[in-house]
């Protein structure tokens, strides 16, 4: 019966599919600002099937090229459509071992969903939502817990940092039989996934479950190990027997603006603020010991994803007013569209074209106001975005008791200071060969934010992937064969930009 119906079905084209993405259920804004539970609830099976049926299976798909780790997207969507969920998971897993995480935090709208052919005419296929659906099901069913058969190669490699770049690199190397050890400076693994991204976007329990995969591959994770202090890289290579080392420590050295008053109490870097709330679960103070120490009127400076996280955390921490202060406009805001929309829905008050010029404190050393100035946009600067210029005479006071700086991070200097011969650029980021991710030191590779500056989870994972191939080659190991994939379509240059 089934097959007859299918035979009669008209061919699926851009004209026959639903014009918009299947909506994803979410907690209502007024409810979610009172809790730290996940905002987006994920597709049900029916919703996933409906969305999978929007993929028109292009002869030459362009979505894959939009993905930094090149997941075979059409194949996994087809498997979902045919309810072969386990297979869908296996297809994703070949290229991405963290689908439940990436399905939640990737900026799909500027990657796979941007290059999706359907997206040229209609709303693109909800690739990220489908990836999350598959990732969540794999976790629920325990598919990720299966031990893989690996033949040891007798080679040894170390990862520094346990964020997305290292995890990807570690898994690729482990699958090729390399004995991999991950060194993490904090007391728990996951890097920025743990300290940076809030619970309501990425639940911590989910990260831990997804990371169990590392154990199945016999990857060792050593927490509380700060490289550059406990061991240096030369020591790791000469005394500890690591043939290759991958540096992926993140950027995580917070920037301040260098304006008067930055020492007052109530001023945080977003890193500190989010670490107190996320990693140390400060929202559960006093049940948990780490306090957050925030006030009622919060100004968050910056408008990237981290700024959105800080704004939305503030609302959930009980702030009465949360102001997002950004010197450019919404158009230039580097945040993902979804994060911005969520923040607006939740009641964050945006002050575009506004920049702080000083912070004013009370007699006890606490912030009481922030002096700001309005801006206007001039000619494009080196980043291609129009340069904000202060409008004289528009200075005004913002009464706030908490200020959070989310204006980016610099390179942490510890590794560079303790690794002779490791070349860094003028901002302190590690210089690498783009083809291989190898640094100026043979056998030492680097990737993720410590190379690029603050970027995304998936770009870090892409760097981990590139590095793993070069590291295998460096150690004289043939990389495991990749499964066959469709011929890739060409992505237009305009989109690539």
């Amino acid at each position, binding site marked *: 019966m089934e097959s007859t119906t299918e035979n009669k079905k008209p061919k699926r084209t851009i004209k026959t599919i639903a014009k918009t993405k299947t909506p994803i259920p979410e907690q209502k804004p007024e409810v979610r600002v009172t809790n730290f539970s996940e905002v987006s609830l994920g597709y049900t099976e029916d919703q996933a099937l409906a969305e999978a049926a929007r993929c028109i299976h292009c002869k030459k798909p362009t979505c894959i090229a939009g993905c930094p780790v090149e997941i075979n997207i059409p194949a996994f969507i087809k498997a979902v459509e045919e309810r072969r969920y386990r297979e869908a998971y296996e297809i994703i897993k070949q290229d991405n071992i963290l689908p439940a995480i990436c399905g939640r935090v990737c900026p799909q709208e500027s990657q796979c969903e941007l290059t999706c052919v359907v997206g040229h005419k209609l709303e693109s296929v909800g690739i990220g939502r489908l990836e999350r659906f598959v990732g969540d099901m794999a976790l629920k069913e325990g598919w990720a817990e299966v031990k893989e058969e690996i033949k040891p190669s007798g080679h040894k490699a170390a990862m520094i940092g346990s964020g997305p770049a290292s995890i990807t690199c570690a898994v690729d190397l482990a699958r090729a039989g390399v004995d991999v050890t991950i060194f993490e*400076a*904090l*007391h728990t693994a996951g890097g920025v996934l743990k*300290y940076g991204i809030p619970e309501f976007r990425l639940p911590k329990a989910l990260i831990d479950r997804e990371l169990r995969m590392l154990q199945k591959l016999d990857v060792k994770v050593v*927490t*509380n*190990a*700060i490289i550059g*202090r*406990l*061991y240096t890289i030369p020591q790791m290579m000469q005394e500890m027997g690591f043939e290759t080392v991958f540096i992926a420590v993140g950027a*995580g*050295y*917070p920037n*301040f603006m*260098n304006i008067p008053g*930055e*020492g*007052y*109490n109530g001023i*945080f*870097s977003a*890193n*500190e603020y989010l*670490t*107190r709330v996320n990693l*140390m*679960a400060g929202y*559960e*103070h*006093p*049940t*948990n*010991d*780490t*306090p957050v*120490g925030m006030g009622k009127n919060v100004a968050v400076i910056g408008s990237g994803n981290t700024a959105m996280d800080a704004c939305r955390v503030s609302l959930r921490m009980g702030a009465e007013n949360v102001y997002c202060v950004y010197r450019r406009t919404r158009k230039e805001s580097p945040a993902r569209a979804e994060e911005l929309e969520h923040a607006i829905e939740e009641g964050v008050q945006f002050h575009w074209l506004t920049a702080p010029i000083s912070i004013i404190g009370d007699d*006890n*050393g606490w912030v009481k106001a922030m002096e700001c100035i309005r801006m206007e946009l001039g000619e494009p600067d080196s980043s291609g975005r129009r340069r904000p210029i202060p409008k004289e005479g528009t200075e005004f006071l913002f009464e706030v008791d908490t200020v959070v700086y989310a204006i980016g991070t610099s390179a*942490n*200097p*510890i590794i560079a200071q303790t690794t002779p011969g490791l070349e860094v650029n003028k901002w302190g980021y590690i210089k690498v060969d783009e083809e291989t991710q190898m640094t100026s030191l043979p056998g030492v590779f680097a990737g993720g934010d410590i190379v690029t500056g603050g970027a995304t989870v998936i770009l870090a994972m892409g760097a981990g992937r590139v590095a793993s191939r070069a590291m295998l080659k460096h150690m004289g190991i043939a990389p495991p064969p990749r499964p066959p994939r469709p011929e890739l379509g060409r992505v237009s240059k305009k989109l690539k930009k």
Partner: protein
Amino acid sequence: MSKIIKREQYSPVTYMWELEAPEIAKAAMPGHFVIIRHGKGGERIPLTIADFDRTRGTITLVIQAVGKTTMELMDLEQGEDLDDLVGPLGSGRHIEARRKVVCVAGGLGVAPVYPQLRAYKEAGARTISIVGFRSKNLMFWLDRFESQSDELLITTDDGSHGTKGFVTTALKQVLEREQDIDEVLAIGPAVMMKACAEMTRPREIHTVVSLNPIMVDGTGMCGGCRVTVGGKMVFACVDGPEFDGHAVDFDELLLRAKRFEREEQESLERLKQEKPHVCRIGL
């Protein structure tokens, strides 16, 4: 995890742990610190390494029970494991040869001064140590100081031992008497370090202080430990915690130490209700 191989109680509020940490001991230098964390929901506490023994593979910490966490940790017994220990952190100090140095230690500052005092001595300096406590019953490590000091001066606020007064009382005398001091190291409460730095400033004697601002990760990630030194913002965890005492903005440091006063008080009150035994130490 790290085992507490030796534990001693120095006073009702001060205790010492010798922790099994061979790798940290191997890498440790004077001036380094560690971060400890224990139990579910436990906070990260930075503590300067008070001693390290590379042959035994241990480091020593001296802890003062001042808040909820440090009071609760007082319950851990010899032989038990501490969940998390990370280090060595900070830039550490390569102590070079000096002719004459004065090491000033106030209260708990005795612990972090000790490895530096020993390094000065090993580098061939004549060492004058000034150690101050509030009262006789809080004193510890005088024997260790004795062994590394050419001269040891002890002060107590209440006069129960040594000279009555503060460490600055003794420092003033030493400064008047000695004309060829190369360096002063002063570690203790921020007000004490500030006072010492003010005393040496007119004579332009290089004065090293060790700051203990509030921090979370201790690796440069949070920026909570930012301090102003010579008009520039620096992170104590990566750039310090040792700095030129004449360049440190102590007033800002003192204000920033009060960031979590209210929350800390709340936590203490809560602890008193939950575990009355821990808080019978008369704080």
